[in-house]
């Protein structure tokens, strides 16, 4: 028995591997701007020992954690600090979420309600009196511009304009478009379909798609998140059974479904996880294997600064997107130093967080202003809102840049589609 003892440490989320080196505190975007937040080390592994003794040691201030996971990326000892904090919130928090938080968290419900009325909803959400109401009654910050709700959902566009074409292809993928593409920015979904079709892949929607649940987790609604997660897993299993990979264009949705489902929500995703991938990663891997080729327009020039979103950092996948972008011949590529933009999903929308949110992002905004790119590229939709609002620089998903730069005809030829 002695030979098996002490060969590994298996404390929950590795909290006991913490060497108390304090490196995580250097990279926490919150603690420097909000002294009320105890910081990742204290909120995570330090207090966890005492919470195990007595749940009274749970501190409400943990809700200030953005769940950006930058502490985990920085940790040299593989302590899942962010998971410890989120798990403690799920386990010990007794407060019911506020109406405002429920509204912000239910991105797909609100989206469903708003989209048909986009023409009405968008101007209303932008009207000063409405913003005042949101600010005062709902505690949604008045500085925030709600992302426009598209008048036509991506799903509707797809069914009407694209679905019938997809069966023509020999190879197929399923697309988890996410709430943002569906309600706010269908163009990204269209760009994705354009690129995939150009390299010979048919795109299909999942049988049933629910919001990945990231906002529900952040707003203290893990049960609902779990229910939605189970629905997604069931749909994905069906797609995988057909031999599809499930692709996304959002780093946060991907991260949530691959890692948070299992770690935080207790959803068994082990048979699905490896088949969920980010579109940029999927494309890069196929190109590297020589299975597909991309051809780009010769007249495409752009100075692109890539921002590695928090959950992209956590997944460690930024090089897939950046190396893919750098395949575009005339791109002037700048890698930004990875810092949190401060929005963190719904966090920055809340009145009480607005100023902090902007303070957190300042370092990134300053970098962008210094670099003066034509556009910022990032794999996260909420970073897009925040960076566009705060710097005025347009922000594009790498897939949209690829779609814009793509020489579709040549690409189709290279991939023997014509």
């Amino acid at each position: 028995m002695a030979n098996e003892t002490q060969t590994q440490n298996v404390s929950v989320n590795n909290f006991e591997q913490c060497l108390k080196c304090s490196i995580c505190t250097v990279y926490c975007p919150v603690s420097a701007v909000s002294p009320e937040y105890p910081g990742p080390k204290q909120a995570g592994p330090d207090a966890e020992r005492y919470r195990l003794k007595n749940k009274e040691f749970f501190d409400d201030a943990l809700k200030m954690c953005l769940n950006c996971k930058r502490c985990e990326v920085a940790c040299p000892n593989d302590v899942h600090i962010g998971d410890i904090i989120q798990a403690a919130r799920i386990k010990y928090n007794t407060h019911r979420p506020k109406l405002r938080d429920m509204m912000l968290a239910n991105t797909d419900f609100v989206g469903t309600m708003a989209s048909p009325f986009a023409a009405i909803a968008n101007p209303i959400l932008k009207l000063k009196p409405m913003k005042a109401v949101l600010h005062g009654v709902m505690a949604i910050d008045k500085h925030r511009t709600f992302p426009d709700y598209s008048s036509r959902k991506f799903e509707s566009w797809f069914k009407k304009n694209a679905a019938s074409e997809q069966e023509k292809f020999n190879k197929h993928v399923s697309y988890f478009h996410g709430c943002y593409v569906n309600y706010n920015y269908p163009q990204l979904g269209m760009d994705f379909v354009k690129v995939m079709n150009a390299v010979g892949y048919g795109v299909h929607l999942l049988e049933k798609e629910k919001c990945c649940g990231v906002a529900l987790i952040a707003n203290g609604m893990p049960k609902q998140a779990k229910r939605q997660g189970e629905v997604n897993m069931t749909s994905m299993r069906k797609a995988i059974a057909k031999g599809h990979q499930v692709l996304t264009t959002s780093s946060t949705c991907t991260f949530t479904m691959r890692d948070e489902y299992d770690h935080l929500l207790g959803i068994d995703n082990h048979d699905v996880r490896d088949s969920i991938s980010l579109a940029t990663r999927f494309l890069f891997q196929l190109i590297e294997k020589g299975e597909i080729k991309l051809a780009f327009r010769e007249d495409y020039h752009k100075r692109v600064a890539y921002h590695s979103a928090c959950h992209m950092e956590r997944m460690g996948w930024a090089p897939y997107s950046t190396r893919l972008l750098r395949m575009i011949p005339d791109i002037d590529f700048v890698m930004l130093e990875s810092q949190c933009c401060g929005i963190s999903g719904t966090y920055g929308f809340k009145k009480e967080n607005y100023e902090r949110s902007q303070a957190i992002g300042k370092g990134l905004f300053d970098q962008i202003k210094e670099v003066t790119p034509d556009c910022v590229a990032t794999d996260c939709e909420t970073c897009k809102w925040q960076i566009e609002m705060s710097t005025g620089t347009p922000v594009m998903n790498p897939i949209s840049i690829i779609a814009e730069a793509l020489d579709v005809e040549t690409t189709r030829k290279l991939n023997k589609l014509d």
Partner: protein
Amino acid sequence: MKFDIIIIGGGLSGLTAGIALAEAGKDVALVSAGQSSLHFGSGSLDLLGCDEKGNDIYNPLDAIKEVNSKHPYNKLENVSSLAGMAKQLLERAGIATTGNATSNHWRITPIGGLMPTWLSMEGMATVEDPNQMPWRKVALVNIVNYLDFPTKFLAAGLRDKGVEVDIKAVTLPELQELRKSPTEMRATNIAKVIGNNDLTAKLADQVNSVAGEDYDMVLLPAVLGMTNDKNSKHLLELIKTPAQFVATLPPSVPGVRMQTMLRRRFTALGGTFFTGDQVTEGLFEDNILKGVKTAKLDGTTLESDNFILATGSFMSRGLRADYNHVYETALGVDVDDLGLDRKTWAKIDVTDAQPYMEMGVKTDENLRCMRNGTTISNLYAAGSILSGHNSIKRLDAGGVDMLTALQAANNIIK
């Protein structure tokens, strides 16, 4: 994913090698499992500080000739030229340093000690002669309520050397706000608050108001400038008296700055940085390392012609000891455990030279790693993971990190 060279470990050693190779036009990837031990740094790099008996060394370049045969310095072709290259590499990354390899200078420690060192980041408080302090009267100016800068120890240490010292404390409303956190009044958070709110000039006013011209030196905690030296330089310019920084307890602002600026240089040269990922497996074929798998890239293998292992010692998780043995964590290459078992890894007095400190990976004369006793022809090791040296007792961490990295890079380019 294919690169010319893959470096495992993103600390001082890995980044040094990465920059050197990227400067030579190579496509370099760096896989880093978390942040590095630069975060516990002093703002100085040591080449060789102490001899076997613990006495301070004055000329490290001379003393290096005497190191024992297992020391990694024996595998360097030309220490003097590598040391010069290291200093220039830092300079090109925007990190200006004072000091050279033929004569140590002494840095002031956070508790008032004097430690011999090789290169100090500009602005850090150092003296040329440990027996003669260059100041008559010093103002020690701390930030109110900042606990990681033990001014009373520092003052006592300086007074012991015949310097007159007054302790002062300054603050600003924004720093008062940060004080509200019982844990987060750390060097790096102070640096963020000062940087984000452009408080350098206001801080300088405060310092000037408590430390007038009757002082010939103002010493401050190194709490400015995490991502570049703009604010720290600016503060020293605005203070009317000559002023310098003394390192604090970790996390170290100068250390984080060095890390950030080296990484910035590496990225600007086109290097690819895999953040927060761990190498979990090496794919070996006929004593050649073909590629590595990582924890996060799942299906992707990172392939290259040459590899450098620079993952650090136990505290950086490059080495690990379990109940029964000491092993290398990323690739499972051969480790020199000095032939000791668990009972003798560590000695009873913590201040004794600890045997575990000298453990590390075995390498041939070209710094190439071995596996099951056979040399791997394209896998080099650099930095603290190398066996045969005790960086705590001999004060050689910075030199081993940078010089072996440069040597490994040279060996690859050759």
